[in-house]
């Protein structure tokens, strides 16, 4: 079974340029997450989708970040324009279930390898 696939693995851009990251979750996983991991830190959630609905985007900097999950499968995370502070690893993860009723709280997240962004 293929895992969570992310691309590109590495991206170097100059500040003010746009960048996009793509994620293909595990087949059948209806919940998809985008996390940002700064150097020496743990992952921090940016946005969570259940199917095609963004159920938690409270930590997404909406002035420059956007995300979409058309048809409830693949997802794209975009930054426009990028700033120096956006340099980080962007992790995509997926899992089964919905967490609104706590019934899927035990479900495990499966992570992709990440997309490392360097903004110069």
């Amino acid at each position: 079974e293929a895992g969570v696939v992310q691309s590109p693995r590495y991206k170097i851009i100059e500040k003010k340029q746009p960048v996009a990251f793509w994620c293909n979750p595990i087949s059948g996983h209806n919940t998809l997450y985008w996390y940002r991991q700064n150097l020496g830190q743990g992952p921090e959630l940016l946005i969570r989708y259940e199917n095609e609905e963004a159920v938690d985007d409270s930590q997404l900097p909406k002035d420059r970040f956007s995300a979409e999950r058309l048809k409830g499968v693949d997802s794209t995370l975009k930054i426009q324009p990028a700033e120096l502070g956006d340099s980080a690893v962007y992790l995509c993860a997926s899992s089964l279930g919905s967490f609104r009723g706590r019934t899927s709280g035990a479900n495990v997240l499966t992570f992709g390898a990440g997309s490392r962004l360097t903004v110069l």
Partner: protein
Amino acid sequence: AQSVAQPEDQVNVAEGNPLTVKCTYSVSGNPYLFWYVQYPNRGLQFLLKYITGDNLVKGSYGFEAEFNKSQTSFHLKKPSALVSDSALYFCAVRDWEGSQGNLIFGKGTKLSVKP
């Protein structure tokens, strides 16, 4: 909001010795706790979880963790460390209060196992 703390930035262990990576949590209600490992240039991999039941949880690669409610801890342990265990370890908790069940991670502990 619920949270986890990993008090050690780095843990150094000799190969063959037991290892412990510490995690404490702050939650209201029953915690859902997880450990993940991250190897260089890789995504996070699930090791084990505690939801309910036996306080000693066994996971992948010979790791186990002990849930201690009175000390609000969930320390990761292994009886005999391997050089290949060297990696970043993250403790995580479900945040049922602030974020509808999102997984909240600690800052991570770097484990270094020397031959």
